[in-house]
């Protein structure tokens, strides 16, 4: 496990955009020039202390600032003769502003245009003088309230979910973890979007090299923008070519906190209503926060069901194809007679039937997802009930294949992680194709290749298959079962934590 390899310079050519981007001195004219053509950019001169000796320009972007905060915390103190009356020197004015005469909560003195423009774009109000500027945090504008998670429903857990606002999200985490060792390191990524990205970890618990590697990965990102989860994920995983998710994404802050306590790191990005947990191992994708909320025997049984479901979802259509096309002697006689009965007068071969049915289900699902909910539901009913039933009655497709495809589809959704479920859907087709060509021999080859591929995945120094491969019996049992909380005294070894002890 070579964690330090993440510190290497990333592959590929540098971004063509030069740095610094705005190679010009700070001035009101220059900032107006930068934002020329931006009608939401507001700039106007004010009289410092109500006198005409110094005329700073106050500028901000309308819509992302709070007008009330600008009036109250910036404009009113700036024009107050009590605070700035008699000031004639620019240096003195800047010093007074940064020392509290202007009551903005965050004050930054900026001497480069890049910094100034970035602050303005972040919702700061800038007071621009000749050669330098002072920026005050006056963020505002519309934002979504903390609501209930939609894709990760909680039965017994907390209901709140992450939003698009980074600071709100860090607040949700902080509220749960009142620990100064919870470190939140922020970076700005994206030349055009300037997206704030935060790395969260617990100092003294999360492996330092892992955090360093993650930070290096993010710092090396030289992109125009980070607007979608995959544009971030693909930069922080080691093998983005694999369809398997190597980063756990969640919209539940409690799940994020559980991961932090396990010694893993998390990444939050402004504008993305989800957090990313690293490193992601295969066994972690089978767990949900509700497992810890419920009784451990029930949770263990459900976790096992998820594993079984995964195998069924992945292999059932392929095994059906293989057995009905090549290995008929493996079927119990009564089942075989039923299948023969159901296939009477069906014009297509088993291969076409199964692959076609799987494709039809995917189409139905895709159509349902992209439509408004009511229409999507109708589409499901039309597709599954009417078309499916009619196809069976018209002997276009055999009922056995409908059942097989439906079971494979349903079991696929018992895997809690949608990304893993999607990857499995892809491999389901691959396995069915191999079964058509080579029967069970093809399936075995497919399984070997799949396990081989999974065993080559690694992220932040943690093998993807750990502890299923490389872990001892106890660790494997912890991966597939949920032991009583009190018996889990140590954290998972695979995450290379700095403090393994979890509880007394």
């Amino acid at each position, binding site marked *: 496990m070579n964690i330090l390899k993440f510190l290497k310079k990333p592959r590929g050519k540098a971004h063509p955009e030069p740095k610094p981007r705005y190679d010009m001195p700070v001035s009101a004219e220059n900032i107006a020039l930068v934002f020329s053509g931006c009608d939401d950019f507001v700039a106007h001169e004010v009289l410092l202390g109500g006198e005409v000796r110094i005329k700073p320009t106050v500028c901000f972007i309308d819509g992302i600032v709070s007008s009330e905060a600008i009036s109250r915390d910036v404009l009113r103190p700036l024009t107050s003769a009590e605070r700035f009356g008699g000031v004639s020197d620019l240096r003195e004015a800047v010093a007074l502003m940064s020392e509290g005469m202007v009551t903005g909560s965050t004050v930054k003195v900026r001497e480069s245009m890049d910094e100034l423009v970035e602050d303005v774009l972040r919702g700061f109000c800038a007071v621009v003088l000749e050669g330098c500027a002072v920026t005050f945090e006056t963020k505002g504008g519309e934002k979504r309230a903390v609501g209930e998670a939609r894709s990760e429903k909680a039965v017994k857990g907390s209901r709140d979910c992450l939003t698009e606002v980074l600071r709100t999200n860090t607040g949700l985490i902080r509220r749960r973890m009142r620990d100064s060792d919870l470190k939140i390191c922020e970076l700005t990524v994206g030349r055009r979007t300037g997206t704030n990205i935060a790395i969260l970890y617990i100092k003294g618990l999360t492996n330092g090299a892992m955090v360093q590697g993650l930070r290096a990965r993010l710092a090396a990102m030289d992109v125009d923008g980070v607007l979608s989860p995959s544009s971030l994920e693909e930069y922080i995983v080691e093998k983005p*070519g694999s369809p398997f998710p190597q980063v756990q994404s969640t919209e539940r802050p409690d799940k994020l906190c559980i991961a932090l306590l396990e010694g893993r790191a998390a990444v939050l990005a402004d504008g993305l209503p989800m957090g990313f947990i690293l490193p992601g191992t295969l066994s972690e994708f089978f767990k949900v926060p509700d497992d810890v909320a419920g009784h451990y025997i029930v949770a263990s049984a459900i976790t096992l069901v998820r594993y079984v479901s995964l195998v069924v979802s992945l292999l059932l259509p392929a095994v059906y194809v293989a057995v*009905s*096309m*090549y290995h*008929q*002697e493996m079927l119990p*006689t009564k089942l*075989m*007679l039923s*299948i*023969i*009965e159901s*296939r*009477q007068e*069906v014009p297509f*071969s*088993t291969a076409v039937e199964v692959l076609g049915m799987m494709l039809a289900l995917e189409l139905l699902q895709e159509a349902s997802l992209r439509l408004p909910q009511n229409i999507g539901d109708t589409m499901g009913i039309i597709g599954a009930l009417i078309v499916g039933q009619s196809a069976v009655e018209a002997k276009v497709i055999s009922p056995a294949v409908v059942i097989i495809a439906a079971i494979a589809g349903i079991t696929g959704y018992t895997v809690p992680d949608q990304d893993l479920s999607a990857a499995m859907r892809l491999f389901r087709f691959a396995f069915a194709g191999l079964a*058509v*060509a*080579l*029967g069970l021999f093809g399936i075995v*080859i497919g399984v070997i*290749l799949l396990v*081989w*591929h999974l065993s*080559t995945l690694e992220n932040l120094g943690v093998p993807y298959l750990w502890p299923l491969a490389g872990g001892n019996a106890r660790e494997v049992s912890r991966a597939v079962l949920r032991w009583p909380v009190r018996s889990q005294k140590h954290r998972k070894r695979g995450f290379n934590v700095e403090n393994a002890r979890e509880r007394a």
Partner: protein
Amino acid sequence: MKKLVPALIALALLALGGCKSGMLYADMREIDQLELIRTVGLDASGADVTATAASGMRVGEGSPTVLENTSPTVARSMRLMQNYSSKKYIFYGHVKYLLIGEGAARAGLGKFLDYVERSVELRLSTGLLIVKDGTANELIRLTSTESESTAELLASLEKDVRLMSESRVCSCGEAAESLAESGTALVAAVRTERGDDGWRLASAGYAVLKDGRLAAFIDTDTARAVNLLTGEVEGDVTEVPDGRGGLAALRVTSGKSSFDAEFCEGEPSRIIVDVRVKANIEELRGGADPYSPDELAFLERELASLEASRIERALGLMRELECDYLGIGGKLRLRHPVKIDRLAGRLAESLAGAETEVRVEANIERTYDLGAPLRTDGGDG
């Protein structure tokens, strides 16, 4: 990508396996193109073998398909049946019963069992039966009708004979194993009977195989004793006199047998067969009182006597055939390993020359009287 490309190339190379039609899709056959054979019958036809194959019932397709072919070998006979249809593949992977005609069985089962052992489709778990007084071909043709198939009738018979303890259908694998170990085997026998509504199957007890050939049949009555001695009792209704001129029907629920031997100059001089039978009273047709200790003891003596006479007949056949089809030698080896091992090669003859002493202890455990359910004097019931 570095690993994916070699993997894809390796996968593509699988298609170039060198097989004449390529590896991909080579052995593919659609499930609905299979003609599922459920019963296979084999008969001797001079030096040739006549194979008869019958499918099971198929909804909407009328009577079962029956095919036959005569060739010098079993394999050829069965393979040639593929010619019957260009669309259907005759599939032997789900054969449930293998029937051997009496003539073929007397000539020897070795070649048939050899074929089953080597066949890639037929299973060793296929049930083996010998057709008494006829050929397998006749039996299959008579019992494959529009309403029933031979396999269904045989499956029904298999359950019935176990319920009545008249025999037990063993598999081809069991028979081959027994023949290889001791040169003898017990195989269920079946025969056809003309009933009111057509031909039906009836148990013919057991067929005794010796040195791979049919040596004798055991009738169903003696077969009950055989089951008792081999520990195969599942349930057997036996009628005995009740002492008042009527009959009592007793259900034998379990039987345990143990064997011992006395030796004289290294040879077994006496074989002692100790049998304990447990039974329930199923029916009383003469007014006997099951709660009377005397009458219960009478019933137990009658049952013991009946079982002893059956066992004597079974042991008599063993002496007559000089064939240890009951596996007594193996059981005696547990008690006298050195002495029995010294008889290796002539054990069956030695056992046949010994006297037999049969001790049967019958115990009637319970009955049910709804008229007086709580009455407990004089018995357990």
